[in-house]
C-alpha cells in the first residue's frame, strides 16, 4: 500500500500477484459522464491544511518509478488513472468517461474533455499512449509496474479523445489494471523528474519533496475534480512508530498510518479511527516439498484446526482484522463463496487427525520476516499445543522474497497475500500455475487449471464460478493455513473527516476539515 502502510513491506511483500474484480461487467458498460464526485470548482474552496504521517513515503515522485506500493497515497492525489476503484471496489470513470470492448483483446476508451496537467498542458489520447509506451519500454525502473499490467501490449490513438488498449490475450481484469497507470504529463517523459517538472492531472500538485522525508502538495485549482476543503497537504515520513504516535498526539500530524495496534488503542481516546480492510489474507503456506507429511490433507486440516482464529485476530492482528471463512477473498470480491466455513478450533480433533495420519514427531519451523515475527510466534504456540514442534526462522526481506517466490527450505511460510491493488484473485499468483522449477505452494492441478481459466474468461458469471471452485478446493484440501483478514488502522484528528477511497487510500480531494 501507499505511503500509509507500515505494510510498506507488508503490502509490497504481499502484493504477490495480479488480480481481477467483478467490475468487468460494470466496466464494459462505462459510466459517470461528468466525473464522479468532482465539483468542477463551482463551490467555494477552503484553505485547510493537513499533515499525513506514516512510517515511509513514496520512494520517487515519478509514480511509474516507485519501487513499492508505499507511495500510492501520494500518487492518487497528484495523478489520475483512466479508471478508478470506488470505495466498494467497483470500477468508476476517471480520465476515461466511457469504455467498450471492441473485441476480446481490444478495449476502447473515451477520454474526459477539458482536463489539464499541472503544467497547463492538455490531457489527450497521445498522453495515454506516451505513458503506456514509457512503462512498457523495457526500462527496469518500471519493472514493478510492468508486472501489474499483465498482457497489456500497446495503446492505439483513435483520435484526440479516444484510445484503444490492446492486450496480447483476453484480459478480464484489464480495467483493474488500468487503475494502476498514473498518467503523467508526457512533456516530462525522458527528462529529469523534479518538483518543478513533475505534473499530473490530480487535485494536488507537488510543491516540495525531500526524499524519504516529506512531500508537500498544494491544491491544483484547475483540476477536473478539485479539492474543496484541503488546500495544502504534507506527507511526512516518521520511521519510528513511537515518534509518529507522539506527533499525532501532539497535533503535529493530523492523520497517521503505520502505528502498532497498542499505539492505535492508546490514541483512540482522543482521536478518531478508521479501519478499512487491508485487502489481504494472513496465511501460512504449507510446503509438501519441504515436509512430505504436508502432502496429506489430514495433516493440513489438523494444522488448520489447531488455530484459534478469533484469538489470532485479537492478539496477532491486534484486533484489526476479521476471522476468515476458510478462503482467501473477502465478501464483496468476485468469487467470494458465502457457503464456505472456516475451520473450527479443535486442538483435540487436530491431535486425533495427526494420529490417524500416522504422523509423529512432526517438526514444522515457520519462516517469515521480522515484520511478521509476532504473528508467526503465535502460530508456533498453536502448533506446539497439538504436539507439533515449531519455531520461527527470520529472514531478511530480500532473502524471504526468494524463499516465498522460488523455493522454501522451511515447511511453513508466514505471509499475507494481498489482492487490494487489482482487487481480484488473480493478484494471488502464488497458488496459480508456476514456472518450471518453482516450488508449488498448493499442488492441485485443477486449481491451476481454474486459475488459468480465470485469467482469460471474460464472462463474469463464469469467472465467479471458477473462482468459487478454486476457493472450495483450497478449503476442502486445507491447502493453506488460514489465519485472518487483516484491516488497516488510520488514526486522525477529530476535525478531519477522513473518507477513504478505493484501495483504502486517503483521497485528499474527498477529505473535509472543519474550520
Amino acid at each position, binding site marked *: 500500500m501507499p505511503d500509509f502502510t507500515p505494510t510498506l513491506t507488508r503490502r509490497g511483500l504481499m*502484493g504477490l500477484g495480479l488480480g481481477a474484480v467483478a467490475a468487468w461487467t460494470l466496466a464494459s458498460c462505462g459510466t459517470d459522464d461528468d466525473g464522479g464526485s468532482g465539483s468542477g470548482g463551482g463551490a467555494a474552496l477552503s484553505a485547510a491544511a493537513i499533515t499525513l504521517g506514516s512510517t515511509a513515503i513514496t520512494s520517487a515522485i515519478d509514480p511509474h518509478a516507485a*519501487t513499492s506500493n508505499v507511495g500510492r497515497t501520494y500518487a492518487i492525489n497528484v495523478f489520475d488513472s483512466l479508471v478508478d476503484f470506488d470505495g466498494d471496489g467497483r470500477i468508476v470513470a476517471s480520465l476515461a468517461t466511457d469504455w467498450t470492448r471492441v473485441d476480446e483483446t481490444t478495449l476502447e476508451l473515451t477520454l474526459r474533455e477539458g482536463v489539464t496537467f499541472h503544467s497547463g498542458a492538455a490531457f489527450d489520447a497521445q498522453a495515454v499512449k506516451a505513458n503506456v509506451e514509457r512503462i512498457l519500454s523495457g526500462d527496469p525502473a518500471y*519493472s514493478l509496474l510492468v508486472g501489474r499490467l499483465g498482457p497489456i501490449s500497446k495503446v492505439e490513438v483513435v483520435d484526440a479523445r479516444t484510445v484503444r488498449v490492446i492486450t496480447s490475450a483476453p484480459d478480464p481484469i484489464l480495467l483493474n489494471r488500468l487503475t494502476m497507470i498514473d498518467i503523467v504529463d508526457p512533456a516530462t517523459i525522458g527528462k529529469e523528474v523534479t518538483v518543478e517538472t513533475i505534473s499530473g492531472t490530480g487535485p494536488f500538485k507537488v510543491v516540495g519533496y525531500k526524499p524519504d522525508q516529506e512531500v508537500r502538495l498544494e491544491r491544483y485549482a484547475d483540476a477536473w475534480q478539485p479539492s474543496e476543503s484541503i488546500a495544502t497537504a504534507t506527507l511526512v515520513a516518521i*520511521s*519510528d512508530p513511537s515518534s509518529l504516535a507522539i506527533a499525532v498526539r501532539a497535533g503535529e500530524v493530523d492523520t497517521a498510518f503505520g502505528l502498532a495496534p497498542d499505539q492505535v488503542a492508546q490514541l483512540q481516546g482522543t482521536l478518531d479511527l478508521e479501519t478499512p480492510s487491508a485487502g489481504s489474507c494472513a496465511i501460512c503456506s504449507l510446503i509438501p516439498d519441504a515436509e512430505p507429511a504436508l502432502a496429506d490433507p489430514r495433516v493440513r486440516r489438523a494444522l488448520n484446526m489447531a488455530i484459534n482464529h478469533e484469538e489470532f485476530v485479537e492478539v496477532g492482528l491486534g484486533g484489526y482484522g476479521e476471522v476468515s471463512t476458510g478462503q482467501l477473498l473477502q465478501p464483496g470480491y468476485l468469487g467470494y463463496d458465502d457457503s464456505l466455513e472456516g475451520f473450527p478450533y479443535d486442538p483435540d480433533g487436530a491431535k486425533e487427525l495427526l494420529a490417524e495420519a500416522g504422523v509423529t514427531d512432526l517438526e514444522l519451523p515457520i519462516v517469515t520476516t521480522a515484520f511478521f515475527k509476532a504473528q508467526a510466534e503465535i502460530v508456533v504456540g498453536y502448533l506446539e499445543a497439538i504436539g507439533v514442534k515449531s519455531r520461527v526462522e527470520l529472514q*531478511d*526481506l*530480500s532473502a524471504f522474497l526468494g524463499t516465498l517466490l522460488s523455493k522454501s527450505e522451511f515447511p511453513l511460510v508466514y505471509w499475507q497475500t494481498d489482492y487490494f491493488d487489482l482487487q481480484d484473485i488473480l493478484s494471488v499468483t502464488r497458488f496459480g500455475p508456476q514456472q518450471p522449477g518453482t516450488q508449488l505452494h498448493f499442488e492441485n492441478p485443477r486449481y491451476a487449471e481454474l486459475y488459468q481459466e480465470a485469467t482469460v474468461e471474460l464472462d463474469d458469471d463464469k469467472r465467479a464460478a471458477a473462482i468459487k471452485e478454486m476457493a472450495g478446493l483450497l478449503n476442502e484440501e486445507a491447502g493453506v493455513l488460514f489465519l485472518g483478514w487483516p484491516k488497516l488502522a488510520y488514526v486522525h484528528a477529530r476535525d478531519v473527516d477522513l473518507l477513504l477511497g478505493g484501495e483504502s487510500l486517503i483521497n485528499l480531494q474527498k477529505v473535509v476539515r472543519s474550520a
Partner: protein
Amino acid sequence: MSDLATPEAVGTRGPTAAGGVLRSALVWVLRLLVVTLGILTILFFLLRLSGDPAAVVAGAGATDAQVEQVRVSLGLDQPLLTQYAQFLADTARLDFGSSLLTDQPALGMVLDRMPATLLLAAITIVVSTLIGVPLGVLAAARHRRTTGRLLSLLAALLQAVPSFLLGILLLLVLGLHLGWLPTYGSGTPVHLVLPVATLAAITIARIVRLTRSGVLQALGQEFTGAALARGATRRRVLWNHALRNALVPLTAFVTIEVAHLISGAVIVESLFAYDGVGRQLVDSIFRRDYPVVQATVFVIAVLVVLISAAGDLLLHRLDPRMRREA
C-alpha cells in the same frame, strides 16, 4: 606549548619538527586509506551476503525474468570479486553510483544530508562541553559534599539511560505534554533542541565524570599545593592549574566523542525524523540501497579519521610529552 610558538624554538628544531609533522601527516593519510579501505571492504561483502537487492528493487510482484533483468542492470550478475574490483575503482573516483531507489547520485545524497548531521554533532559537543566541564569542576571541588555526590550520581544516571528512552521521554514531556517543542522534523533551530538534548545528555555525563576525575587527580598533586602555597586563590588553582591538567584527556575524549556523535546519530535522527545521514543510513540499509549505504559509510569513515587526526594534532599542541615522544 609556548616554546613551539616562538621563532627561536622553530628555528632551533625546524628540520626535526618539520620532519615530524611530515611523518605524522603521512601516517594520518595511510591510516585514512587503510581504515577506509578496511571498512568499505567489510561493508561490501557483508551487504552482498545479506540478501539480493535485485529482488527488493524489482518488487514482490516481479517475475524471475524481471528480477534477473534488474540484477543485470545493477551489475549484480557479475562474479563477486569482479564487482569488488569495480567497486574499488569506482570508489577511487568517488563514484558510488546512483541510489537504487531514487536514481540520484549516492554521494550527492549523502553530502546533502551531512551538514545537518555535522550541525547536530557540533552543537551537541559545544553544549556538552559548556555544561559538562563546569559541572565536572564543581563536582571535583565539592566532591566530599552533597553537591558533588549528587552531580556524580546524576552523571552516572544519565550515562545509564539509553538514548532512545531518553529521547522518547523528552518527546513526551517537552513535545507532547508541554507542547514547547516540535516532535519531529528539522530545518529550524527549535527542531535541534530535542535531538541535541538527547545526544548531549550522555556526553555531558561523560565529560562531568572525566573532568571530575582529572581535576581531582590534579588537586592531589604537588604543583597545585605549591600554587596554593604561593598564594594563588583556590578558584585560580582549580580553574587555571587543575583544570588545565585535565584538559589533555578531556580533549582526547571530546575528539572521540565528535566522531562517535557523527556515526552514532542513527537512533536519535530516526527517533526525531531528523534530516541527517544517520536516518538516511538506516533507511538505506533496510531498503538494500547499496550505493547510498556505501557512500554514507565512506563519508563517515573519512570524517572520523580526519577528526581523529585533528584530535591528535591538538593533543600534540597541548601535551609536551607527546611532542617529545614524536
